[in-house]
């Protein structure tokens, strides 16, 4: 059972000038998010993450393609009772106090009076804002707003939680709290779909990720699978008492050589050359300290996709300019 299914989702924004073509923010995006999954939606600035989330929440209409949440078309009013949403850098009614604010959203979600009072306290505790409960939101700091925004998204105990960059604006402790919160939501059987450009967060908690660039989904799958697909695992070799300067053989093998005092760090692009390098170090009378296979991270994949995208787009741009 999939909680989110998008099929060939596209969105063009009118340019606002007659004659100028519309801007394509999303281009045939298809992805699925299973029940009980934490899905990380990854992409650089302007990739179309927020646009996708807005379409899912019915705030923006797709130009073409379909999106379904919990088996209903995106934007279905009744289904929203089962969905929680935190927008990007959230803005709220700043004349309300934290308590009134959560009460307002709870009542909108149809909670009754008794259930609400309990729930508000529970959530204020969860996001660590109990002392600020009677403070107006206009007096909140950025991170506090992010926290109250999260509480707002969870007030009605939704099955599916959609978060747009939930970690931005939070301190390291807050970040960890949010990560733990997302994990505990999954433990309760909830589905979490969140966008971010912080790779570390994704690597740590997501079951699956999708990488979006220029409105297109360029990769998606389990984090370990995506990373394993990437065969160019580099190896870091550290040794001592070795004169690397002028050693053409080592320089030809390595992608990077760093001499720091006595120690020398040699980075090999593939594990194949390790034997050859170790032999050379022995021959030169160096002392081997460590050999560390550097597991390719999501970050490498991310940059690799970004570079490919750039090399695909750049020639077009330059040739366009030449003509």
């Amino acid at each position, binding site marked *: 059972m999939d909680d989110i299914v998008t099929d060939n989702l596209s969105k063009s924004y009118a340019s606002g000038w007659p004659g100028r073509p519309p801007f394509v923010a999303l281009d045939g995006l298809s992805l699925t998010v299973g029940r009980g999954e934490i899905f990380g939606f990854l992409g650089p600035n302007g990739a179309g993450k927020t646009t996708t989330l807005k379409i899912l*929440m019915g705030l923006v209409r797709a130009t073409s393609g379909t999106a379904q949440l919990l088996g209903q078309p995106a934007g279905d*009013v*009744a289904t*929203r009772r089962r969905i929680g*949403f935190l927008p990007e850098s959230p*803005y709220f*009614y700043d004349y*309300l106090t934290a308590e009134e604010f959560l009460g307002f959203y709870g009542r*909108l979600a149809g909670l009754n009076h008794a259930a609400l009072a309990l729930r508000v306290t529970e959530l204020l505790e969860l996001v660590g804002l109990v002392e600020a409960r009677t403070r107006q939101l206009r007096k909140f700091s950025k991170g506090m707003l992010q926290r109250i925004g999260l509480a707002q998204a969870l007030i009605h105990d939704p099955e599916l939680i959609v978060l747009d960059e939930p970690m931005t604006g939070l301190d390291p402790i807050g970040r960890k709290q949010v990560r733990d919160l997302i994990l505990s939501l999954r433990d309760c059987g909830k589905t979490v779909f969140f966008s971010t450009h912080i790779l570390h967060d994704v690597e740590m908690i997501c079951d699956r990720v999708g990488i979006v660039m220029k409105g297109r989904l360029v990769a998606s799958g389990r984090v370990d699978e995506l990373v394993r697909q990437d065969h160019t695992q580099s190896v870091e070799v550290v040794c001592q008492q070795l004169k690397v300067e002028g050693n053409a053989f080592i320089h030809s093998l390595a992608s990077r050589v760093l001499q720091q005092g006595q120690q020398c760090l040699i980075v090999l692009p593939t594990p194949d050359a390790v034997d050859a390098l170790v032999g050379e170090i022995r021959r030169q009378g160096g002392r081997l300290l460590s050999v560390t296979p550097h597991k390719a991270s999501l970050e490498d994949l991310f940059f690799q996709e970004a570079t490919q995208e750039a090399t695909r787009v750049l020639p077009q741009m330059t040739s366009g300019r030449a003509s």
Partner: protein
Amino acid sequence: MGAIGVIAVNAFRESLRDKILYNLVLFAGLLIGLSVLLADLSITEHHKVIADMGLAAINVIGVIIAIFVGISLVNKEIERRTIYTIMARPISRTFFIMGKYLGLALTLFVNMAIMWAVFLLTLWLYHVPIHPSLFQAAALIFVEILVVTAVALFFSTFTSTTLSAIFTLGLYVIGHLTADLRSMVANHESGPIKSLVDLLYYVCPNLDMLNIKGQAAVGIAAAPEFVLMASLYGLVYAGFLLTGACLVFQQRDF
């Protein structure tokens, strides 16, 4: 249905915490009080001036509040992006607009009630007779305010705050002139001007119909049927505008 109420109560609460409204209502009180100073007239003239000025002050301040809160009601939500979390809730866009409108109507009602109380107090202090016609005039002022609010809300669903203010103000002025314009060109032969004035007359709200302040101030009551029909006209007009606002709002991207 509950959601409309939640939105309305919150819109009301928002305006209660907005200091500008207090200032405007205070200003209306001042204007009403000021009418007393224009007293260098015969006693009947004096009474008429106090009633006239009081009603005018209530009308003008009410319309100003209606325009300025009306245009920002929905626009502010979009510009400040507070709309995102609201629209992510199980409430339809139509209910959101209705809730906002009802909340503002409630605010305007309370404001009018305060101004009305100050007005009656002034009349009583200066022994001005309180005719039933004054109540009729006030009722129609409130209907006019409801129409103006709907106009402001309608424009604000698709244009910027500034343009909405200009359009609403424009429609308000035209709405008071169309009836006069029409009778002016009625004698002329038919022509493009006449058709244009006819078009304006039927499209714009005939706000002059809702203005019986002049006769009310001298104690001439209007026929109850007229008050009823005029109110009905205003409410139906507001209803059409709100429907339009909902239809436009339904199509919007945020």
